[in-house]
């Protein structure tokens, strides 16, 4: 693929058509198009409205617990014996992951638009829990679509959603993972378009979702940038985040995109290796295509049929990725690397033992990459890893992998 010319800034996208270069767009059924245009209009008004900002800020502070800490991971740093490792502690947010940042923003949009019902898709259940949480807080009925495989492997989150009053609808199509949940959520949306707000959990889907999810998640990078300047007096050398759809990653990356000395690395799910089909590394092993409203890198066969993929981590088990990541990949600004299931599992255990923090399996992928590069770096260098969520939800999966009974 030809590399596009280097832009003056990497932070200006998308264009008016919702494109990041050739990626993004609005590939949806006509039924949804008027609604998406309305969402875009409401979003454009909201983002410059001081009242909207103030309400979101208030909720972020007092309800979600922001700002999240930037924590010097001394145990892991000592263990690895190289650069200093910092964790951006999104696991400490209310509901246990970065997903709440986006859900608070979008529920306020839903309110502005006068919608009566919330639907969401979820993989690991973190977004489902965050959606059910804000729906409970603002008094909306909420339906969460979740692949049947994920319902089984993320049962603690399923129960949390039910406690919060949401209806969890298992989806049995395909492998019963995030892709299938998203298809079903789109079918619900197209059917109930008049009164329903679709609260997309990742920085993907038709424009303006990739942009608005990114903007709501960019609080991660904005805080991290200010925090590292305060704590270390300089910018980091490397920042790392795991990429499924890519919302925690784009949230961390975006405020750093024009800091050209900061190396940015996104970690894809390498599953059981890139040789076969049991992985979700769409940017490392896929090619551009159109799915779920946007053009982006996808795992697909030569006939354009989408593959199911595999990851130990339900949150990364998606054959596509947000369109801005695809553009950042092709432009060369961000480097994307795969991490295998086994490597993530090792990082999960190590972090638990040397830091006393149980990371989500998604975040463990990012930590696993830090474990590879940090020992080769100088002691005065700095790496920030996005600890996007806590791992309580994953203990059953990990116990299974390790052959232990709970």
């Amino acid at each position, binding site marked *: 693929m030809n590399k596009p010319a280097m832009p003056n800034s990497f932070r200006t996208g998308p264009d008016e*058509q919702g494109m990041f270069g050739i990626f993004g*767009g*609005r*590939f*949806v*059924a*006509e*039924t*949804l*198009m*008027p*609604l998406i245009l309305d969402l875009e209009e409401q979003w454009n008004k909201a983002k410059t409205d001081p009242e909207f900002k103030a309400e979101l800020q208030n909720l972020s502070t007092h309800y979600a617990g922001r700002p999240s800490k930037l924590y010097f991971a001394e145990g892991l740093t000592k263990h690895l014996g190289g650069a200093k490792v910092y964790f951006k502690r999104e696991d400490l947010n209310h509901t246990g992951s970065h997903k709440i940042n986006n859900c608070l923003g979008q529920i306020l949009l839903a309110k502005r638009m006068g919608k009566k019902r919330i639907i969401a898709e979820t993989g690991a259940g973190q977004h489902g829990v965050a959606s059910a949480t804000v729906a409970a807080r603002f008094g909306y009925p909420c339906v969460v679509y979740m692949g049947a495989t994920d319902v089984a492997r993320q049962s603690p989150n399923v129960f949390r959603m039910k406690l919060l009053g949401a209806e969890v609808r298992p989806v049995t*199509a*395909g492998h019963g993972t995030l*892709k299938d949940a998203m*298809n079903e959520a*789109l*079918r619900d949306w*197209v*059917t*109930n*378009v*008049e009164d329903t707000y679709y609260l997309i959990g990742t920085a993907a889907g038709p424009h303006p979702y990739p942009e608005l999810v990114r903007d709501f998640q960019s609080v991660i990078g904005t805080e991290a940038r200010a925090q590292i300047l305060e704590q270390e007096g300089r910018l980091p050398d490397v920042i790392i985040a795991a990429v499924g759809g890519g919302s925690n990653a784009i949230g961390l990356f975006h405020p750093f995109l024009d800091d050209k000395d900061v190396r940015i690395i996104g970690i894809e799910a390498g599953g059981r290796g890139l040789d076969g089909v049991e992985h979700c590394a769409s940017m490392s092993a896929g*090619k551009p*295509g*159109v*799915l*779920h*409203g946007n*053009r982006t890198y*996808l795992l*697909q066969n*030569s*006939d*354009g*049929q*989408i593959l199911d993929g595999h990851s130990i981590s339900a949150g990364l088990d998606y054959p596509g990725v947000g369109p801005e990541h695809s553009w950042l990949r092709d432009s060369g600004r961000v480097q994307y690397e795969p991490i295998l299931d086994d490597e993530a599992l090792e990082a999960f255990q190590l972090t638990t033992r040397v830091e006393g923090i149980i990371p989500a399996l998604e975040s463990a992928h990012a930590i696993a990459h830090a474990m590879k590069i940090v020992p080769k770096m100088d002691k005065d260098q700095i790496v920030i890893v996005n600890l996007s969520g806590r791992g309580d939800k994953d203990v059953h999966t990990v116990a299974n992998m390790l052959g232990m009974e709970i």
Partner: protein
Amino acid sequence: MTARIDRRMAKLKAEGRPALVTYFMGGDPDYDTALAIMKALPGAGSDIIELGMPFSDPMADGPAIQAAGLRALKGGQTLAKTLKMASDFRAGDDETPIVLMGYYNPIYIYGVDRFLADAKASGIDGLIVVDLPPEMDEELCIPALKAGVNFIRLATPTTDDKRLPKVLENTSGFVYYVSMTGITGSALADTTKVSAAVTRIKSHTALPVCVGFGVKTAEQARVIGASADGVVVGTAIVNAIANVLGPKGEMTADPAEAVATLVSGLAQGVRSARLAAAE
């Protein structure tokens, strides 16, 4: 522009009846059976054939068409084979219009220019691509019009008067009115509202308006056909195929015959539409 759709619509208008547009999934349950179904359609009373291109993730389709697509993919169907199916059909029928219907990704991966050249050579007259709204016209719609293939747009209950001109702008062949906000195979919407919507669209365009989504019986075809220029039936046909497949996909009766029986009944409904309306 291929003239088959225009010719067929003009002929039906002269006869004073709406078109029966039949959808089935290319390659369901296998290539040869699907080709036999396709060949049986015109004789049973189908005026225009919508040939479904299977896709792994059909986000606007209900369970019946999802399952049909999966059967076809399992049977080895590809976009290239769907084009070949049209071409095989054309060898024996040069008049019945064929419209390809599906999702964009397989076409994008095949390559838009190559696809349009091969579609034209295979005797394809029009395209319905669910996930390409007017905002994405540069992708396929404009190239298709340049290549002389009709691009048939979907209009829906959410397409208001302000938006209709944009939807109609690059549409040719006919306009496909989706009778409801929903997925294929849902229950039919209030027919009074549907006919009001058809009238509304007709006030914006001279193109024929065909109505689909939710039409399953001859009676429904008759009622919808009273105001529309065409009636599209899809899920009912796909179900007729599914009904003669056993649990392991084995055929318990001839799918082409099952489809022909259903379509003959629907054709009766469509043919009596205007008589009923005139009463």
